[in-house]
């Protein structure tokens, strides 16, 4: 906790800094008159062809799901990498590499299967 307290303090400071800047700039900035055309969302000068909230089909959800799986697998490799040197020094290097290669085999098979099943195709 004491290690993370400064992080929290800095985060609060950055937020205060940002809000203060926005406030100052709103104080001294030129006051414009609201205008129906000016307030429109920018679509290259043409009248907006959408109304209400913008709806876009998100095609990246598959990518996002795959990302979560792979990212978790990679995070599992961090502690392995951290303790790898100690295991080798104590003569258990082959054991820990073998255990990890089983894990990596699943990882590589997953990636291979993903490519084969055309999950990683973009138009």
């Amino acid at each position, binding site marked *: 906790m*004491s*290690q993370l307290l*400064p*992080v929290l*303090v*800095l*985060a609060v*400071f*950055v*937020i205060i*800094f*940002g*809000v203060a*800047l*926005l406030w*100052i*700039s*709103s104080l*001294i*900035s*030129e*006051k*414009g008159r609201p205008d129906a055309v000016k*307030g*429109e*969302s*920018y*679509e290259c000068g043409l009248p907006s062809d*959408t109304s*209400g*909230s*913008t709806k*876009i089909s998100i095609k*990246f959800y598959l*990518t*996002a799901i795959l*990302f979560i799986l*792979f*990212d978790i697998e*990679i995070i599992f*490799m*961090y502690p392995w*990498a*951290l*303790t*790898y*040197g*100690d295991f*080798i*020094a104590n*003569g258990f*290097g082959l054991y820990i*590499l073998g255990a990890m290669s089983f894990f*990596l085999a699943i990882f590589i098979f997953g*990636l291979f299967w*993903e*490519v084969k099943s055309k999950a*990683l*195709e*973009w138009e």
Partner: protein
Amino acid sequence: MGTDAFEVGVNFAKMVAIFLMMVQIVPLLVWVERRGSAYIQNRFGPNRVGPLGLMQLLADAIKFLTKEEFIPERGYPFLFYLAPVVAMIPAALAFGAIPLSMPVNVEAFSMLGQHWGPYVFKFQSYEIGIGIVFVLGISSLAAFGVLLAGYGSNNKYALYGALRACAQTISYELAMGLAIVGVILLFNTFSFSEIVTAQSAPLNFAFLGHKVEWSVLPNWGIFYQPLGAVILFSAMFAEANRLPFDLPEAEGELVAGYHTEYAGFKFNMFFIGEYGHMLVASALMVIFYFGGYTVYPWLTPETAPKIMAPIAGLMGWSTTSTAVSLLGALLLHVVFLTKIVFFLWIFIWVRWTLPRFRYDQLMDLGWRKMLPWALLNTVVTAVIILVMRHPWGG
């Protein structure tokens, strides 16, 4: 944050100073970018305001502050205002965890009728034991600022830009995370300062259980992990949304991407976030592969105070260990900044040299090329380390 008022005060001041340093580097980088791009494209660039056009930075800041306040009618005001503030946080927090120089030792002294110290001040906002994991985790939060901007503007270009930025960030994070595994395998630590300390030595490694030392080269990570360095640096370009990976703000397709509706200082804050990200990326490259704030054998935490001791004497300062330690730390800080500036220039250089990828090429490169190569890098590194470091017969 500290045990007494002096330590807490210094730590807080240090934190604010490092954050402001990051914010101040942004206008300078914008100037370098504009002058550099002009140089590359055989133009002049901004050269009218002040010497070399340097006062342009100030003029820009004033212009940003006085711009008219604007919220798109269909946008969501709270999210619209929140996004630029959120965009600054990840870069600032990540930069705070990076050691910028060696620690400063302050001897015990008396002030205001009280005895203080001794202290050791780290040359960074805060040191976190799992520094690498912290920086990785925090910098992936950068996607939130972008998504909030895209959603809060309620503009189709902004939303497309934000979605693309998010997809790209998460795709390249895999290759980035895997490239860093190679570094951790090599140094067996999560702490930045330990990695730097390990690199401030002659090139040494175990060869089939024997110690080998080559004193001609420093023990930099680049000599062990060249492929990892290339993968990490390329992935950093994608993470910072820089050309050739700047699909989120491809002008020809999406106007300006997620900050289409932003003007004035809000726009500037996105820049602080983006350039802050570049700064963190360069700092990580320097720490992982190029010796951090040391250049063995000339500039290391051992030699820097010795170099600076005569200078402290010349300046008429007492040559106590506090002054010498501070000057030594500043010297190493200049070394670190020099290395960072080199990588920042590469960022700018590449931006004005290479064309942009197409979207499918971008995702292909991330998932089907860089991820397998990073995986190969990890496996090969692990096997070589096992063969080399295994206590054969011992």
